[in-house]
């Protein structure tokens, strides 16, 4: 009997949005027609999104890549004998040697795109659950110290030290504590959370379990946005699998710890990515932002001490507990330690996921990795850190990826999302959209955000129609100041940043339309 060849076809949302399901079906059908034995495995995505659907064939233990593959290419791939790694117009060589991937440092994304996302055996064979095994031998204080020493900061955008949050929860006495994962990844230009949940769900489960063990929380919730149906399904299945294997529930891995996990589906409110609003939503209420203090670490979900972290932060915990705080801390620059998962998106030739140590220049990401715009025109602006982040001007492209260095030029690393625009962009329209979006998504609790965003749209419209442009430009800046200093949370407090960046760096667009 001939041995079976393993072929990987990603099951990730982006790969599927470009036809991966049809490719997988075509490969299986063509193999049957030719009488060759092929095992099609649906892996996660490697994150080289411009090459999706990226098909990989295992040849003598090496994974050979072909992409982007359309279903109509499958017959010619078989004809060229791609099952033995043969040459073809779509051949890319060994996957690991593709420059875009080879230049990355994949710590949090170590398994993403390599394993079958729902195979617990794959997960364990590739280093999974070693962090939890170590954590179960440590005290809560020791686990929290490891997370603090690693220098890990909140990857959701606020960059608050994760260890400090955990330490506060650990020190808060209570009959019940919670671990909440913020998977309400609503920023445009981001998909790293989605990728983890779709491509390596067990790493998030492991990270949350370690959090529960560390602070004595017995229940966790993953709050996932409704726009991510596949992530919701994958996480739910993975949680069932982990439960059945004794990684969740009473007596986690034979220990005295109990930790249960549940997925909660969000309902399309951007504001619920703000942590206190998310907690309100989990409690079954309108997602209205809470006043702080009290901090969620002291009075969080249902009034109990709660760890609330982004997917990326929690998914980075297992590697820290597996390889040690020093290992993680040794990557990075300044006070930004470890790796950042940059999501390169928008008008870009080679968009995708780039996990790399902090300290890399923005220019290198845009041109060496990204290859410039998809349209072939010059890059005019890059929005960094989501809809509340500034638009960066080409004169700022030498800035190094580092929370403090970005802040120093008035920009934000945030969740690591970059949206690239070519020179056809109308920056006044982008400034208007920042205010429009804030108006649509405001929870309505504080006036600067609720009213300010609506007025912001109106003032920009007046400037564009030439109505008292000079006076209205002054008014717009004053409005931005009011929103920044007077809003309760980051939505109203930061929506002015993209607007101000347009006023400061692209003033030529902020004038009356012809």
């Amino acid at each position, binding site marked *: 009997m001939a041995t079976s060849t393993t072929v990987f076809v990603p099951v990730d949302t982006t790969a599927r949005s470009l036809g991966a399901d049809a490719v997988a079906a075509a490969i299986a059908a063509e193999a049957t027609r030719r009488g060759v034995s092929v095992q099609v495995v649906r892996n996660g995505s490697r994150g080289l*999104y411009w090459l999706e659907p990226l098909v990989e064939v295992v040849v003598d233990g090496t994974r050979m890549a072909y992409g982007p593959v359309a279903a109509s290419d499958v017959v010619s791939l078989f004809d060229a004998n791609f099952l033995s790694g043969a040459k073809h117009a779509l051949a890319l060589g060994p996957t690991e040697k593709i420059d875009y991937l080879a230049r990355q440092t994949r710590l949090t994304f170590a398994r993403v795109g390599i394993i079958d996302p729902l195979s617990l055996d794959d997960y364990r064979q590739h280093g999974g659950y070693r962090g939890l095994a170590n954590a179960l031998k440590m005290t809560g204080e020791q686990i929290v110290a490891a997370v603090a020493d690693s220098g890990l900061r909140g990857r959701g955008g606020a960059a608050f030290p994760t260890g400090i949050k955990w330490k506060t929860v650990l020190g808060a006495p209570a009959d019940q504590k919670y671990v909440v994962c913020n998977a309400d990844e609503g920023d445009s230009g981001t998909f790293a959370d989605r990728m983890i949940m779709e491509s390596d769900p067990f790493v998030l489960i492991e990270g949350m379990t370690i959090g529960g063990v560390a602070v004595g929380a017995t229940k966790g919730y993953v709050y996932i946005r409704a726009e991510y149906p*596949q992530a919701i399904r994958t996480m739910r299945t993975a949680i069932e699998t982990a439960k059945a294997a004794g990684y969740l529930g009473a007596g986690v891995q034979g220990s005295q710890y109990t930790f249960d996990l549940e997925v909660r589906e*969000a309902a*399309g409110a951007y504001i619920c990515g703000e942590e206190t609003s998310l907690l309100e939503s989990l409690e079954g209420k309108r997602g209205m932002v809470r006043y702080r203090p009290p901090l969620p670490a002291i009075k969080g979900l249902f009034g109990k001490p709660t760890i609330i972290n982004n997917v990326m932060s929690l998914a980075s915990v297992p590697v820290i507990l597996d390889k040690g705080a020093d290992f993680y801390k040794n990557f990075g620059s300044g006070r930004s330690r470890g790796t950042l998962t940059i999501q390169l998106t928008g*008008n870009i030739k080679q968009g995708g996921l780039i996990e790399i140590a902090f300290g890399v220049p923005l220019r290198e990401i845009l041109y060496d990795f990204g290859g410039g715009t998809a349209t072939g025109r010059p890059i005019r602006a890059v929005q960094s850190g989501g*809809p509340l982040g500034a638009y960066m001007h080409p004169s700022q492209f030498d800035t190094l990826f580092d929370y403090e260095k970005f802040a120093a030029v008035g920009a934000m690393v945030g969740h690591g999302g970059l949206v690239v625009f070519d020179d056809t962009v109308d920056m006044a329209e982008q400034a208007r959209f920042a205010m429009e979006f804030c108006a649509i998504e405001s929870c309505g609790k504080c006036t600067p955000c609720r009213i300010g965003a609506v007025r912001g749209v109106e003032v920009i419209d007046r400037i564009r129609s030439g109505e008292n442009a000079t006076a209205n430009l002054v008014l717009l800046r004053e409005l931005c100041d009011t929103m920044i200093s007077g809003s309760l949370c980051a939505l109203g407090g930061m929506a002015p940043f993209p607007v101000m960046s347009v006023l400061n760096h692209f003033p030529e667009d902020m004038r009356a339309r012809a």
Partner: protein
Amino acid sequence: MNQGEQKQATAIRRLAEARAGEPGALLPILHAIQDEIGYVPDTAVRIVAETLNLSRAEVHGVVTFYHFFRTKPAGKQTVYLCRAEACQSMGARALEDYARRKLNIDFHETTADGRFSLEPVYCLGNCACSPAVMVDETVYGRVTAQRLDEILK
């Protein structure tokens, strides 16, 4: 109450009671109702309020706060067009205009033949292959006007 309404009310009560004991049960219950019935009808507000011992104002407030919950039946398929920045950089504004003209409806409306509802969405997490469109739960990347025609055939 006619027979159809009676049946719907029974279904809502069953869904609400099934999860009433869970902490923070309101959103999961509303999701369950929308999954089964296709929307959250007015009667649901009263029944869910009774089941969870909340005021009708509280339940109504939650239903209307979240963009995802609809209070009227949708078309057979819901088309979600991404309007966020990454998609804008690749022509989402033009695609949006095209979709509205093609379907002859605005956002939050349903075509006269009941086939499609059109909803805006702010990011589908498919930003490296913009513009993105989701039809029910299927996501499409790099959508051009021509590709949209094929998707909505």
